[in-house]
């Protein structure tokens, strides 16, 4: 009897491992192996074809002291993240609040607001390059109607990144759905009792809605921060095939890394850059997790 149950348990265990095997193989071959390879490679002068000599911290030294474009790309990426993350978070919360009101047609509005976020890829960048085109573009056309002469957007180094951020705001509805789902889970009694106390709309938002959606805000912050640092395609497509745009103003971190790795095959250096990015993302995620305790509210009271 005992032997039988233990053999059943064993069979269960083996089946469990078989089920996760595809992931496990993929993890080792496509994630763990590459991670270790790039960590070692970042200390070499690897160039895919001929050489892979250990050169210590030379790549890292060169990055911080001998490559001004590294700093440019880091600056561009931080600029983008610092504006994009709060703007999209606030934008999707605002959208969700509006869509959570009991007015007619919210289902249709929800579809319209969400739709831009499912559209991505080169076609969307082409569409926005036309909208941002200084002469014939929609944006400057509209600005001209109200008597404002718009900037040259993608051709003016001061306006390239704001242009990209405006484009990102178009697809802000992706996060909205998460907030909306969370808001619809808030018990209506909370609002009803607030009504009895004479609370106005702002009070209800500030003291009921906002605390109740902090878990989603936290999730949104973490994921859009990680995503934001990986901006690449926008810079690649919207500057002439990856040259970084006017005065390198669209040379994002990943674009610089891409050019180093696949244009000049300075792979060791590119892998060192990749690790610095990884470290930045890890530190920011850890800080996010650490400070979340202070402001993220979990129902049930115990701050997890």
């Amino acid at each position, binding site marked *: 009897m005992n032997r039988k149950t233990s053999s059943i348990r064993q069979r269960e*265990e083996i*089946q469990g491992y078989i089920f*996760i095997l595809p992931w496990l193989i993929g993890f080792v071959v496509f994630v763990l192996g590459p991670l270790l390879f790039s960590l070692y*490679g970042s200390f070499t002068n690897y160039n895919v074809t001929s050489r892979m000599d250990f050169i210590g911290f030379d790549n890292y030294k060169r990055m911080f002291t001998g490559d001004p474009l590294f700093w440019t790309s880091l600056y561009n990426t931080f600029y983008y993240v610092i504006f994009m993350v709060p703007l999209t978070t606030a934008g999707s919360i605002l959208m969700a609040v509006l869509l959570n009101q009991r007015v007619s047609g919210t289902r249709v509005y929800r579809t319209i607001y969400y739709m831009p976020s499912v559209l991505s890829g*080169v076609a969307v960048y082409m*569409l926005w390059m036309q909208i941002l085109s200084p002469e014939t573009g929609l944006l400057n056309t509209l600005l001209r109607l109200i008597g404002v002469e718009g900037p040259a957007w993608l051709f003016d180094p001061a306006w390239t990144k704001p242009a990209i951020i405006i484009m990102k705001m178009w697809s802000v509805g992706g996060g909205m759905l998460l907030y909306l789902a969370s808001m619809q889970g808030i018990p209506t009694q909370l609002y009803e009792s607030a009504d009895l106390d004479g609370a106005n709309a702002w009070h209800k938002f500030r003291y009921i809605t906002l605390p109740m959606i902090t878990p989603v805000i936290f999730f949104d912050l973490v994921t859009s921060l990680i995503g934001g640092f990986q901006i690449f395609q926008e810079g690649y497509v919207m500057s002439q095939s990856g040259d970084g745009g006017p005065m390198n103003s669209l040379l994002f971190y990943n674009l610089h890394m891409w050019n180093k790795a696949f244009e000049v095959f300075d*792979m060791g250096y590119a892998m060192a850059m990749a690790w610095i990015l990884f470290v930045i993302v890890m530190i920011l*995620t850890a800080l996010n997790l650490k400070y979340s305790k202070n402001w993220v509210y979990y129902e049930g009271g115990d701050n997890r």
Partner: protein
Amino acid sequence: MNDRYYVSRHVQQRRSKIIVSVILLAGSIILLMPLWWMISTSLKSMDEIMQYPPTFYPHEVHWENYIEAWHTAPFTRYTLNTLLICAFSVAGSVLSNSFVGYGFAKIHFRGRETFMSVVLATMIIPGFVTLIPQYVLFSKLGWVNTYLPLIIPPFFGSAFFIFMFRQFYMTIPNELVEAAKIDGANHFYIWFWLMLPMVKPVLATVAIFSFNGAWNDLIGPLLYLNDEMKYTLQIGLQNFRGLVQTQWHYLMAASTLVLLPVLTIFFVFQRYFIEGMNLTAGMKG
């Protein structure tokens, strides 16, 4: 006094409803404008595009822009290539993630929770950290300029989809699995015959997401495909811009055609997008 309080409250509520409606309407006009502009530009003549003041709809409709744009580059070929990659990507994702997700949700084995945290932890790894070594791996295997680097990895699962499946399987009572086991079924049988029919919504969601992902992927094809006849729509479109420069009517016509399948899928299968979001929401806890 009480009456007046309620009346004013009622008026106030109606007023705020009107304000919200107006804002929502204005917001949707702003959000729909870029798409309208794309389609409108795609149907104009170049003269009308350059015209000032600009026109907000094509005064003369040029459907032939679409045909001319399509024939300027081998777009039919690009489409077939893209569809091939999408088909493998969807098949791979649906199979592997539903399989692995079942293991994490319904089978007890040592280290399960640890492995699951590893799955989740991999989501914070920036793609570019593993991109370069993966390129090295695939080039050593001789897979560059083939579709293999684009269609093989989906068969090994992806963290996000595994998580989605796991969340959904966990809502299915364990008693079902236990009962089937008592009847002598093993987990492979239970997964395929019992569970897959029950998780159809997630299968659809994952299929749609991975189709969109493969359809819109630029980095993969850019890195691995050199031969123009192997190009996908994304690099094809990127190349096309080099050909037509600022002939916006052609560029917008081609862009509209590339976006059309994604838009259609969105409108037909909208509820699965929302389903996917609700499953994502499980991650916030």
